[in-house]
């Protein structure tokens, strides 16, 4: 008896450590590159930490927090960020659903349509920014020419007019990133069983009714995922704005992340920048939690 149980007990002891052991490498990275910096950010927010001096600097208490909350620029960048989020999330969710439904109806050449919609997503942000800077260029750009064909004599300066700049950047972003949501929706469409379609068709539902009452409700979970991912991604916008307008004209497109970058790296006020980034983190957390809570309630009611 003893001879047979001994090996099994050692193997079970080994099994107990197998899971955590496999997690260990990732857990280390997680601690070193995510949890550690997060703790440092929280701590630095309570100090006058400077990029130009080593160490944490003088203790500042809550003065960074009161300064940020009283800083008109902080609220303005937050407003810009939320405006960008609205401008991108709505079309990126609705349009990608429409495109996915459209692509799903094709049998022949479907690969080409999938490729065409997804292709821009693989471009790096620098390429997309350069491309659209040429398109939106004043005096010489394509976008102004196109508008002129439609009879507009004095086209707006797409990136130079404070009223238009954010809309122009959002439009470029939609073109660039729609492929990701599109693929998620396509995957969701594959999960709608053929029989449901057939049953609805036998019951006399037309194509439009099938989409509205069968397909779209069945894509509910995908929509939740797509929206949350999109909102979080949009709240973290930085690169394309930095490259296309660097926050201008006159700060009208400056997102919160650029405020963090500017105060932290340009001015060297790391303590202040840490406070702003922590507050932005809380905003993103809050938006995501509220969204999940709403969705969960809606699902329970169903």
């Amino acid at each position: 008896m003893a001879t047979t149980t001994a090996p099994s007990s050692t193997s079970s002891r080994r099994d107990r450590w197998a899971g955590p052991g496999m997690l260990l490498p990732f857990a280390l990275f997680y601690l070193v590159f995510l949890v550690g910096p997060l703790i440092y950010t929280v701590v630095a927010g309570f100090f006058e930490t400077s990029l130009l001096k080593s160490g944490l600097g003088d203790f500042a208490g809550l003065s960074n927090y009161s300064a940020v909350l009283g800083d008109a620029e902080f609220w303005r960048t937050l407003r810009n960020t939320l405006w960008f989020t609205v401008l991108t999330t709505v079309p990126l969710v609705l349009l990608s659903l429409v495109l996915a439904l459209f692509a799903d109806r094709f049998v022949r050449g479907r690969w080409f349509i999938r490729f065409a919609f997804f292709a821009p997503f693989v471009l790096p942000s620098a390429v997309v920014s350069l491309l659209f800077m040429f398109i939106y260029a004043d005096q010489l750009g394509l976008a102004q020419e196109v508008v002129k064909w439609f009879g507009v004599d004095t086209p707006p300066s797409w990136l130079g007019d404070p009223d238009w700049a954010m809309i122009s950047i959002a439009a470029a972003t939609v073109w660039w990133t729609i492929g990701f949501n599109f693929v998620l929706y396509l995957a969701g469409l594959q999960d709608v069983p053929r029989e449901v379609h057939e049953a609805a068709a036998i019951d006399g539902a037309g194509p439009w009714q099938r989409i509205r009452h069968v397909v779209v409700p069945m894509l509910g979970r995908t929509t939740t995922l797509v929206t949350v991912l999109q909102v979080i991604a949009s709240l973290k916008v930085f690169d394309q704005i930095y490259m296309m307008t660097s926050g201008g004209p006159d700060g009208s497109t400056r997102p919160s992340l650029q405020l963090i970058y500017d105060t932290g790296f340009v001015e060297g006020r790391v303590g202040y920048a840490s406070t702003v980034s922590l507050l932005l983190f809380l905003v993103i957390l809050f938006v995501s939690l509220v969204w999940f809570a709403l969705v969960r309630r809606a699902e329970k009611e169903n």
Partner: protein
Amino acid sequence: MRDRIPTPSPPAPSRRRVLRGGLALGAAGAATLTLGGCGSTLAQGFTGGAPSPSRLNFWNPFTGGDGERMLAMQDAYRAAHRSTELKSATFLWGNPYYTKLTLSTLGDRPPQVAVVHLSKLPTLAEAGLLTELHTGDLARHGLTEDKFDARPWRKSQFGGAPHAVPLDTHPFVLFFRTDIAEKAGLLDQQGQLADVDGPDAFIDALRAAKEVTGAWGGSVASVKEASMQFRLFWSFYRQVGGGDLVADQGKRVVIDTAAAAEALAYIRRLSQEKVIPANTDGKGAITLLTTGKAGFLMDGVWQALAVQSAKVKFDMRPLPRIFKDAPYACAADSHALVLPKAPTETAQRLDLSLGFIASMLHSSKLWAEGGHVPAWLPTQRSRAYKELVPQSHYATAADGAVYDPAAWYGGAGSTMQNVVGDAVTSVFTGDTSPTAGAARLRRDLRELASRPAPV
């Protein structure tokens, strides 16, 4: 034809063997790092050891035409100093560069020599990131005060001692198409631009050019280029006699709002009278000139190569003197070579570094071809430089060079340039009136001055 039978894959190595192999590799790597620590820059970064005594690390922010010239200057150094191993690194201009320079110095891994803008010098020196230079050490390498242009030399001092060796002055100047100017009747017998000084004369010249081009008279970057708008304002504001914007390293705001309003009113006139487009980015402004849609361009001398490469007939001259209330002024900055503070004297390698700096200055002619006015007088006064066209045509602009106000939030690519530039753009495009713009400048600068300084 192809063999259809799959070749048997070699037996998979056991997990234990893979792990053991990985550990052995890691240990070998670590051993290489410690033993050959002096060898590679990467290893030096990990161990923090000083690089080998013959190694010289040099950092600069020069790309494009400037970058090519800088590489040629380094080649000249290499050819003359075969025993030194020169390692140069080029980073993207602007804040990313200064961030890296600051962090590497704080982390005790600075390059031996680096390029900085003199407008950034007060902040970097105050933060204690630079090695103070001694006139005796400099003289040993032939770097004496009498060989340098007075303005950049004075600007290289901090607390009464030199902290940098100036390489050039690069002012904000006027480019013009000689063919367009000729058709517009703006050239005199010598082919020089006739009088464009004074508020009305300059606008008249722009209007005459506009009639020839059929599009615009001149161009200047406004969209996405707050620093260019800052330079435009800073030049005119100093010409009006406005003096400084801030004092006490940026802790006190001393802007003369009346002078600011006057300068802004003139900037607004340029767009209001439709001689200059109000919305053009940096590349667009140059393209307007090179495609003949504008006869003039206000830009930095460092664009000389970009315009030259378009192969059009053009020339350059100092920015016009619009206002006569104060000595001639145009916004400018200078590149300079500094020794970031090293942890030890061995890591600093003073004489090797100073020798490299002296060699860079001896290559000033190469540097001047890129558009910059050399700070090294033996080159600036040389016949070869005087024959350099259009580079020598605007050399006098360096005499009116005014640097950015000294403040921790000022200098090349700084918050001050952005904040002031944004306000100027908004006047330029007509969204804000000149008086309101001047009031906004004072308000924004006060807000900047009230922030706790990181130095």
